[in-house]
């Protein structure tokens, strides 16, 4: 079961998979847009994005637009590599069946 070990545990959840997918093909994406793209709640996005940040896969930027705080996300180089290898092992797993 060598290949299974390569599947990244961090990307097991659908929400995290979604966040990474969106960030792979976009530059900065803000909180509201990410939320509506994934169709999830504020708390859900906040907890999953902070755990991705802790793993060093995404970068979080907080700024003020006028008086409103705005949070945006971007994938890091490490996150990109990790996600691509996760995709590759997913593909291999399916092909080997």
């Amino acid at each position, binding site marked *: 079961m060598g290949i299974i070990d390569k599947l990244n545990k961090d990307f097991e959840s*659908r929400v995290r998979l979604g966040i990474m*997918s969106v960030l792979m093909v976009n530059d900065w*994406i803000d909180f509201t*847009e990410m939320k509506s*793209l994934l169709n999830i709640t504020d708390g859900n996005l906040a907890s999953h994005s902070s755990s991705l940040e802790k793993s060093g896969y995404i970068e979080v930027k907080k700024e003020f637009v006028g008086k409103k705080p705005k949070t945006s996300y971007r994938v890091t180089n490490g996150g990109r590599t990790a996600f691509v290898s996760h995709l590759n092992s997913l593909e291999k797993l*399916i092909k080997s069946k």
Partner: protein
Amino acid sequence: MDQKHQEDLSHIRSMMERSSRFISLSGLSGVFAGLFALAGSIYAYQLFKNNGIEYFDGRQKMYSYDLIIELVFIALAILVLALGSGIFFTLKKSKKFDLPVWTNTTKKMLLNLAIPLFVGGVFCMALLYHQLFALIAPVTLLFYGLALINAGKYTFSDIRYLGVGEIILGCISLFYLGFGLVFWAIGFGILHILYGIIVFKKYK
């Protein structure tokens, strides 16, 4: 387990697509834009007739100032109706599929569409100003085609084929000046309807 991996992959694919392409564009808006354009062309043809101009007699024509103003208004009215139906069907489709409309991708697509259109618009106003009316139809087709190709990066790639079609038609019309109305009817009418039907069937 295998099932889950398949679903993961298709989830990834759909999230990438949803977030990077403007996929709420409805084929129906193409069909309606085309119908409005055809109706406008027929109305313009009738207008020529009522003003004593036989459009297809192949002779050089002189248009009165009032007639030109009226033609410009018809063109603007078609534009408003076509845009209006485009927005209407887009909002409808995005509601149906629960897609966000006003995203970064939408803004990028509109900007990429707007730049060539704006330049084309200024170009046409200059042509009107210099009274080079015969060139207006080719120029609108050419710039519209370029705008579609430019915007194609951010929406269904099929729109690029529509853009290529408009450009080819625009190039041909450059050599048949004086038949602008016919080329407009084909480019904005028939091509839009064809494109709309194809896209509507493909992404239903």
